[in-house]
């Protein structure tokens, strides 16, 4: 126990300041005020791997490490779509995951946001469309924000997640706290 405590003290707080929301990643502007009114500043994310190579998952995991400390920003991953405000979807959508992705999307209460992460989720990537792949996520469900990269870095992912929930500069002056 003493060793554990000593290690905690020795390491200290490793968390770094978060990046700013990257508004250029936003591809759909709808619903924004309504979503923010409901969600406030806390955000629950449900991750769905719809066919990824698992590279994006490694970087999504990194969001929870002490340097990015996603929970410290009031954002956390939840175990059910019914608890989620935002779906974080990776991979080209494999045809075998198409129904599961649609159902997960339907099970998420409105208003909801969808962030497609990784080149495959944004464009189909190297896998493209084929007999077993539907290609990009927006071919299956509507997407609000796309975060390209193979895989996108945790900083890039954070910028995208924050872009989905940040008040856009265009309507920030009209929004209420």
């Amino acid at each position, binding site marked *: 126990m003493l060793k554990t405590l000593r*290690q905690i003290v020795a390491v200290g707080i490793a968390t770094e300041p978060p990046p700013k929301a990257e508004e250029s990643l936003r591809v759909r502007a709808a619903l924004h005020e309504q979503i923010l009114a409901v969600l406030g500043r806390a955000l629950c994310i449900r991750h769905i791997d719809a066919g990824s190579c698992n590279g994006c998952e*490694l970087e999504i995991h990194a969001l929870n490490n002490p340097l990015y400390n996603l929970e410290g920003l009031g954002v956390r991953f939840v175990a059910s779509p019914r608890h989620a405000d935002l779906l974080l979807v990776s991979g080209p959508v*494999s045809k075998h995951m198409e*129904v*599961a992705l649609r159902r997960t999307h339907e099970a998420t209460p409105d208003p909801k946001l969808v962030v497609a992460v990784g080149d495959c989720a944004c464009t189909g990537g190297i896998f493209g469309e084929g007999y077993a792949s539907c290609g990009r996520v927006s071919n299956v469900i509507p997407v609000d924000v796309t975060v390209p990269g193979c895989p996108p870095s945790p900083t890039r992912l954070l910028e995208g997640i924050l872009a989905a929930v940040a008040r856009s500069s265009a309507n920030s002056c009209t929004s209420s706290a």
Partner: protein
Amino acid sequence: MALPDWFARSTTLAGAPELYSLTVSLAEWRSAIENLAAAGGRLVALWASGDAINAPTVRAAFLVQRLGLVLCLPLADRQGAYPGIEDLFPAAGRMQRAVADLSGVHATAADRRPWLRHAAWPESFRPLVDPAPPSGAELGIDAYEFVRVEGEGVHEIAVGPVHAGIIEPGHFRFSTVGEKVLKLEERLGYVHKGIERRFTEMPILEGHRLAARVSGDSAVAFSWAYCQALEGITATVIPPRAAWLRALYLELERIANHLGDLGALGNDAGFAFGLVQFSRLKEQLLRANHEALGERYLMNALVPGGTRRDLDRGAASMVRRCLKEIAQEALTLRTIFDEHEGLRDRFTGAGTVAPELAARLGVTGLAGRASGQAFDLRQDLPCDPYVELAPAKCGRTEGDVAARVAVRFDELAESCRLAQHILQKLPPGPHVVPVRAPGDGTIGAGLIEGWRGPVLVALEAGPAGGIRRCHPHDPSWQNWPALEYGILGNIVPDFPLINKSFNLSYSGHDL
């Protein structure tokens, strides 16, 4: 015939060292494989080649007595079934079902259920043979026949495909009494996205990029195996510096994955401290990767003929400093893990796969080494520079979660040592040489010990610089069935921990 007779008839296969190829008749197929089984051989992969023009050939790769052998069984037609080998090598069962799904060639096995094919394409369409799927086919949900367990108080728990965490999708069907697991049946194939067919649409000099994305956490292992096959076919000799850099990348990939897994295993046993500490170390390594090589995960680090970038002296010493700190910190954390009663209680005896069972199932790689299967390509069939590096073999015989944790700690330390040695002794010279596209019909195979186990890429060149067939094989194929046994008699709440201790690839398996 005995084993030496089969090898006497074989020819050298381009690519990995000590790899041979032998074409057998339908009558010889089983007897050759019986000999291989009797000699303690290991099945690496089973796949089929052939397309709309060429008749099918079933291929099976084995490792036996520090040699590799690929048996090729040409079939005159697709209608007749070839003799299955799942009684000799249980892991072959699912591979045979996948061959039926993708190439339309069936084995004489009792289990005729599809494996990788769910509802995306009809049985009449053979993705690796037919030019295009029938149009207008309706997508739906298929009814897979799970094996039912009956009896008083038995109930089923269905989990997935979407899991309650940041994990790849798959379906687990538990049959339980109370909390105790009586049976687990896996159903995979959800992330099947047509990788093998996609290869045939790519130039052969570009295929390494797709290989790196078969299983993102094993990008170096797969892209190296691909490049090794291609370089073998084209008789390209890579410069010593390229081989050493590749070995460095492979060890960095192993270190990153072990750091991630050790943290997650602590977390799954209720020790969040472990996750925080190890994920911090992993992040340090990824940042060092980015600074030295321009990417956190080495998805693009290898190219045919060598490596994409060179490593300068300053970057090398920066990586060395990072690895030194990781090795020291990991040692401290190991003591904390070892002395933590709660962790010991959760790890010891959980998810046991005893050595006899592991041998019978053909459990391979890291999980195999934790169950007394002391096999590692880096020692037993080494390619350059592993002959010279001579890594120490790590292993345990208990076969439980604790053993898989211990092997990870041992390998982490050994990989840090190897990487330090490589960075110190990196030979001078070029880091890449040009490679020309090979001639139509030439074949080869690469074999690399990834962090999970042996990764195989079999490659057949097509016309005009294309790919006729490329089969990537992840060791998860062998180890997924072991998880079904490892969980037996354990309680359902221990499944996430046991599953994590194997940490198998879905994407690498589903293709």
